[in-house]
């Protein structure tokens, strides 16, 4: 029982080392995947962080502007014009 | 509406002009944009010995000979019209095989043998698992390595 288990374990280990070695091309295959994942993840993180930061800035700006709102011209509200 | 129309025409005219200009430039520099010459080019252009250029084509089946020094390989490169003999001293890329595409960098010697200082393997656009190739070979439907390449160059 223990012997069979050990053999199974060794087979799994062999399979993993075999997989990681990529037929001797590990030094090319893995960096290629790593670079791709790193760039794609970085773009997500940077974009998301910038969006959240701007959202916070806008909230604080709008809360400051709140009391003056009645006097402000309507054009700035909601529609495309103010943002165009 | 009017300025929009005008801007549209400006953009279209600009793009058309650019396209024509690019086409002209690319046609004019045609020879420089080519990465390698085929054996036929070598004959037609009558390239002189000791002029550096790249020669590309297919490695002729059964043409690979190893010299006695163990480092120099002699083989033939063909575009299925003309054939040039190539001699190369050094380690060949792992994809270097008979029937496969190669691009070599070097110059012709006085005998018309291309002395290569670099050999690059050019692979074709077919991607197949090993088992499929084996079964194709077994059933006799396999058209040989690099067959996709041959007609292209």
């Amino acid at each position, binding site marked *: 029982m223990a012997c069979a288990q050990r053999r199974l374990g060794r087979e799994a280990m062999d399979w993993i080392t075999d997989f990681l070695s*990529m037929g001797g*091309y590990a030094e090319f295959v893995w960096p*290629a995947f790593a670079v791709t994942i790193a*760039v794609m993840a970085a773009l997500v993180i940077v974009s998301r962080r910038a969006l959240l930061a*701007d959202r916070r800035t*806008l909230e604080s700006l709008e809360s400051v*502007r709140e009391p003056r709102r009645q006097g402000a011209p309507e054009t700035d509200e909601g529609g495309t014009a103010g943002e165009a | 509406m009017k300025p929009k129309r005008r801007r549209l025409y400006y953009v279209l005219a600009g793009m058309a002009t650019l396209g024509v200009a690019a086409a002209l430039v*690319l046609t004019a520099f045609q020879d420089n944009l080519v990465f390698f010459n085929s054996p036929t080019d070598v004959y037609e252009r009558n390239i002189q010995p000791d002029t550096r250029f790249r020669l590309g084509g297919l490695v002729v089946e059964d043409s690979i000979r190893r010299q006695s020094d163990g480092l120099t390989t002699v083989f033939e490169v063909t575009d299925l019209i003309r054939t040039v003999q190539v001699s190369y001293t050094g380690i060949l890329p792992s*994809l270097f095989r008979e029937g496969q595409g190669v691009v070599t960098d070097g110059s012709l010697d006085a005998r018309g043998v291309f002395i290569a200082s670099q050999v690059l393997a050019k692979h074709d656009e*077919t991607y197949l698992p090993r088992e499929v190739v084996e079964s194709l070979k077994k059933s006799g439907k396999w058209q040989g390595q690099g067959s996709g390449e041959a007609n292209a160059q």
Partner: protein
Amino acid sequence: MNLHKFANPARFVRYSTAVFPWLAGATAALLGVGLIWGLLIAPADYQQGETVRIMYVHVPSAWMAMFIYGVMAVASAVGLIWRHPLADLTAKASAPIGAGFTAVALVTGSLWGQPTWGTWWVWDARLTSFLILLFLYLGYMALWQAFEDPRRGARAAAILALVGFINVPIIKFSVDWWNTLHQTASISSFQGPTIHISILIPLLIMGLGFTTYYFTVLIMRVQREILSRKIRSLRLFQVQPGDGRVEATPQRG
């Protein structure tokens, strides 16, 4: 005009926010399945062995690099001609994503070239035109930054995007027009693909995943650009409270 409805930033934010979680979920699922399929299930190539797996990241990156440039060029044209507020922002938001994919395609291509061709880099028509694509993206992004007035920056950058679009068909057909070390396209519309189905399926899954990834990140970036504009106009408004009408003047036409 129907298109105008989508050019309304507020409406874009509303719709895109609704679509966003679905797109993000689809991206995660497609990339997860594609990676596992490409790395574990797909067979090795009869010539190249395991290096063929680099294709699963290299080829979709290159596709996206060119597709995103196409989006950028179309958006730039729409921005120049019709002055739609969202078009310029879409182009601007796309550029860093496209530049990222271009860099990835170049690096992974190099990592694929060394074991298969025997070289990291050659100056053939395909590789050179692709390097130019990276410079076009970088130049485009720099041009946006170079102008104090974002409207002028938008116009200059849009013109560069359109001029540079000439490069896209050159990249695509370089392998057909000239002798290159790079192989020709495996998936062309004229003949069937020259890739075995077992290698093609994970490739297409990855391609789909990269596409939804682009739109997912694009939504975040465009929304951010909309917020940035709002912030800028609010700040201007706060600096000159009496002159509000000047700052709020519609900038169309």
